């Protein structure tokens, strides 16, 4: 058996609200699959069904070859879950939390203790091991939560928005931990609303919106799907925009767009760095001063915007806190602090 997760035709409704609307998903052994979508897309519902916390309305779901509805107890022996609201006991110490989880996986007294110590070392929590979790920072709690998911060395690991609400430093730390996990050959299903995160961690990405798949592929494939690379230039003088546009039209493979306000030009190109070098050479020959230049590939944010017609951040804002527009990142940090 090579597929660790198989979902087909998965439907889940909450009253009139359709959370999952016929989702299909396959995750082969050893793969990290990123389930990408805005808030309310159905990511958490999918994870809750996969981890036996919720029963589906229709469709079939197997994890490690076991049907989650018919054999939930056996599924639970093979999975590890790390959720978005760190599911650890804050009155217990880090060590006590992991020891408890180990005992509840029935590792046995000695093994549970040893495993708790090993994981605390591995997640750089050994110094905080004997402090109650309520004294931990957000990043430390999240690492402990992830450690708890790995106590029984599960065949499949579910990470529900593992870095939502973390500060940039903790996020980077969490990423390298997850990458390490992936290198170890674990099968991981990861949900995220951060494009960068999916790009960074996932071998394969499924973009979902309103409970169904809207795109599927590697990060590169998704980026190609909405177009190739482009040269972006910002000129010093707006008067140079017209001649520069004419010049770029010669190397561009599509329409060259200009923006008077920001003195910016965008031209779809092929040929990568070599094209960029030629463009700069010609601009220099024509004595046109350039303030900023770049060869850009579409980000997953662009992908999302193209595929759904709305940005991931917008969708997140709708159900989130009223915050400063355009500063959703900050809004999330605040949510995490509460």
């Amino acid at each position, binding site marked *: 058996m090579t597929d660790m997760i198989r979902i087909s035709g998965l439907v889940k409704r909450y009253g009139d609200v359709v959370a999952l609307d016929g989702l299909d998903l396959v995750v082969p052994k050893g793969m990290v699959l990123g389930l990408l979508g805005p808030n309310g897309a159905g990511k958490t519902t999918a994870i809750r069904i996969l981890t036996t916390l919720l029963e589906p309305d229709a469709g079939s779901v197997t994890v490690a070859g076991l049907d989650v509805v018919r054999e939930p107890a056996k599924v639970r022996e093979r999975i590890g879950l790390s*959720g978005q609201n760190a599911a*650890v*006991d804050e009155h217990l110490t880090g060590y006590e939390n992991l020891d408890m989880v180990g005992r*509840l*996986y*029935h590792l046995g007294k000695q093994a549970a203790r040893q495993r708790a110590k090993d994981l605390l070392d591995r997640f750089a929590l050994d110094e905080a091991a004997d402090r109650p979790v309520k004294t931990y920072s957000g990043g430390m709690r999240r690492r402990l939560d992830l450690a708890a998911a790995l106590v029984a060395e599960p065949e499949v690991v579910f990470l529900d928005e593992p870095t939502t609400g973390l500060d940039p430093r903790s996020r980077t730390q969490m990423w390298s931990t997850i990458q390490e996990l992936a290198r170890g050959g674990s099968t991981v299903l990861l949900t995220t609303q951060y494009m960068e995160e999916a790009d960074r961690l996932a071998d394969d990405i499924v973009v979902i919106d309103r409970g169904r798949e809207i795109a599927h592929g590697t990060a590169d494939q998704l980026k190609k799907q909405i177009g190739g690379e482009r040269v972006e230039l910002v000129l010093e003088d707006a008067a140079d925009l017209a001649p520069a546009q004419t010049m770029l039209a010669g190397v561009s493979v599509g329409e060259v767009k200009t923006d008077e306000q920001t003195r910016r030009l965008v031209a779809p190109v092929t040929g990568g760095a070599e094209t960029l070098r030629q463009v700069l050479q010609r601009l220099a020959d024509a004595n046109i001063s350039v303030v900023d230049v770049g060869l850009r590939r579409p980000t997953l944010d662009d992908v999302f915007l193209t595929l759904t017609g709305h940005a991931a951040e917008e969708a997140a804002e709708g159900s989130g806190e009223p915050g400063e527009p355009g500063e959703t990142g900050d809004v999330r940090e605040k949510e995490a602090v509460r």
Partner: protein
Amino acid sequence: MSSVALALSDGAVIAKRNLIKIKRLPEILVWTLISPIMFVVLFGYVFGSSIEIGGGVNYREFFIAGIFAQTVIFGSTYTGVGLAEDMTKGIIDRFRSLPMSRSAVLTGRTGSDVFYNMISIFMMAVTGLVVGWRIHTGVFEAIGGFAILLLFAYAFSWVMAFVGLKVASVEVVNNASFMFIFPLTFVARTFVDSSRLPGPLEAFANWNPVSAVAESARVAFGNTGNLPTPDVWSLQHPFLYTLIWVAIILAIFIPLSVRQYSKAASRG
């Protein structure tokens, strides 16, 4: 491992976790222990000064068993509150995704609350001794008296476990439980002689299991004096009647609570 052994060993792990919390937050204990002491002193001196119980029994000896019964029942709200609190947190998702027994969170909670009840009974007994209560029987009878109190408390904590899972809000558990615990513990042979109550209340009090629990403790500690026991089966056989109630409550509320736990989604 058999499912019963699994439920017990997993329950023990959860119980240990709950006891660690009491160790870390001793103020939880302080407040819940002060109230029984306050009750002993208030009832003993406020009511005790004007209530003549008759039968040659000192009121402060008579009502202590009632206070014991009332306190363990109030103590059971702690079970409901603890579970309601757990249900609102992410930790319940962790537990539900682990291959542990489906009843362990409940057996662990009700199990650790036995310890909690032991402490509060101990505190009350000490306060009782200070205000003049004495055990007039032997060691074994006394142990029997404490045992029946704890046993009933254990059964009743399953009722509150169900309430806690059902409403899943700490405040609602507190308010809701007061609504039925007050009549249940006052319209009973706890603080007054039930035979002096008006007709319907007398019947209710005589068959109220709380009366039987208090009467069991009273008999076990030898605090009945010459006071005539009402001629109803429930109070003539308080131990047996209490045990029947314990069996009924456990038979109903263990399965109900386990089912409720399995289907309740975390509201966190």
